[in-house]
């Protein structure tokens, strides 16, 4: 187990390095630069600014310098916000995105598992069709449609909840989080309940569940202790990538509800060629995906006695 973990982490390092390298050169290949303003600055000042950020160096030198910085866990200064480092910007935006993402995925897993299990237990009943219907709706209504509609109905029309805007001074309040979290969770609820339904149906047909029933175990215990345990396996392997995508913040949700999260900053930074911020977010995202996938795989092994890592 430990050697498996070590091996996975060892593979992760070159992966991250390749990702950083690809991202670095792709970003630099884009025309325009962080100091191209609408009103061009005088050439001398431009030279000075470029020199201050080391951008007058040849590209390979910049790359080496950047990598040296990464090795020291230094993501460098933002090129657009003069008095902020990349770490500052991530520290501002990431908690917002992470909170919304974590709440959404928890909600999605909770609701999705229950919905999927109920549908599987009562296959071809009205409850089953309802769940399948809801999950299909969840899949075909993307967040950028659901978000505005919810904001319009719940926020503006009925005036029940605020439609958005997290003021960093007041922090995140529950009522401001409800709509973004639900909007972000709905497609995931749809996918998870589908996954759960399919795998639960398969597990319920398996021999060991029949054995458990034949032993005379109460139905609840058969479902919870025997069936559920292996029925969640496909869900577990889906969660790694899903969680990473959610944690970095659905850019759309942040746009619709005006949340100061990392996704919005990322798009802004890329459009303004704020190289270091873009790189910082890419590194964060890639690391999260790798770590969460690893956790998902370990969890998978822990739940599935057939899989052994060594």
């Amino acid at each position, binding site marked *: 187990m430990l050697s498996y973990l070590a091996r996975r982490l060892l593979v992760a390092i070159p*992966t991250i390095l*390749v*990702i950083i390298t*690809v*991202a670095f050169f*792709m*970003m630099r*290949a*884009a*025309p*325009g630069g962080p100091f191209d303003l609408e009103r061009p600055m005088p050439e001398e000042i431009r030279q000075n600014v470029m020199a201050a950020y080391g951008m007058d160096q040849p590209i390979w030198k910049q790359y080496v310098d950047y990598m040296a910085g990464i090795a020291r866990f230094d993501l460098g200064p933002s090129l657009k916000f003069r008095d902020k480092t990349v770490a500052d910007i991530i520290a501002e935006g990431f908690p917002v995105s992470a909170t919304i993402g974590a709440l959404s995925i928890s909600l999605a897993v909770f609701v999705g598992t229950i919905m999927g299990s109920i549908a599987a237990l009562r296959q071809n009943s009205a409850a089953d069709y309802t769940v399948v219907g809801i999950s*299909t709706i969840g*899949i*075909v*209504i*993307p967040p*950028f*449609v659901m*978000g*505005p*509609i919810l904001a*319009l109905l719940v926020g*503006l029309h009925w005036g029940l909840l605020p439609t958005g805007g997290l003021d960093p001074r007041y922090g995140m309040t529950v009522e401001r989080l409800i709509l973004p979290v639900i909007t972000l969770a709905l497609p995931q609820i749809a996918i998870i309940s589908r996954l759960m339904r399919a795998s639960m149906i398969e597990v319920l047909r398996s021999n060991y569940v029949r054995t458990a029933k034949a032993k005379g175990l109460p139905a609840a215990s058969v479902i919870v202790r025997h069936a559920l345990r292996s029925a969640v396996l496909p869900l577990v392997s889906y969660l790694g*990538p899903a969680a990473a995508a959610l944690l*970095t913040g659905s*850019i*759309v949700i942040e*746009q*619709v509800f005006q949340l100061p999260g990392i996704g919005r900053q*990322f*798009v802004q930074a*890329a*459009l303004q060629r704020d190289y270091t911020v*873009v790189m910082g*977010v*890419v590194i964060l*995202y*890639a690391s999260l*995906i*790798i770590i969460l996938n690893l956790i998902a795989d370990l969890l998978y092994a822990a739940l599935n006695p057939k899989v052994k890592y060594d």
Partner: protein
Amino acid sequence: MAFTSPPAEKTEMMERAAVRGRSLWDDARARLLRNRAAVASLVLLGILTFLAFIGPLLWVHDSSFIYRDRVQIPPGLENWHLFGTDAQGRDLLARTLVGLRMSLMVGVVATAVSLVIGVIWGATAGFIGGRVDQLMMRIVDVLYSLPFIFFVIILMVVFGRNIILIFVAIGAVEWLTMARIVRGQTIALKGMEFVEAARAAGVSQFSIIRRHIVPNVLGPVVVYVTLTIPAVILAESFLSFLGLGVQEPLTSLGNLISNGARDMEVAPWTLIVPALTMMLTLFCFNFIGDGLRDAIDPKDR
């Protein structure tokens, strides 16, 4: 999968056996046609496609004509603005049809791009195996951990925003899963008894690929294609929503939804009409995809 192999020694016998083997597809078609949701979706999608491509030519309003005195008219029969007009005074029905056409085109073309790259990549990796396979799949893994949006933004700014690029960019992102599916199938098939039997019978490598590998890989690929098209349509809409997709005067459903979301307080129909159109389209593709999966993979029934 329980596909029978041609138990033949002579080539002509194998030809005949292989032809008979196509009854698998006949079976699949029959199963698909029994699925009412899938058939209804096929019909509806056909109608939508027809309207999207022929409708704008026949409709009384041009999609880009601006009626200065008819801004944000609610849906109604007056002047034939059945779905009303948008914030610039353009007929919403005409714009929705044109947008649907663009979304469908993006969906099909980008999926075709992903299909070509993914199948070639996956089949090569799976068939050669060993180190080449390891390396090629490692590359796929690395690409998986790049944020999709990052990719596309860079591509957009490197080459400038144009439609062809959107096709290629989305296709270039979506091929990864396709490559994995094809590789997995190829590896699984390589070890199947009927492929070994064919090899033992002296069938050439090329014939094995053509007669046995390709038809058997095709099933999952077709299913995945029908599920990729709506995913691509969603991806393009997502980009358009962020202002990175199709640019005016062209439009797509995502673009219309984005504009509609901005005006929804005064003109909710500008959000509802394109949003419903997109939902219908995605519904159709999803039901067709599910139907195909049930039809082609008998294991799942």
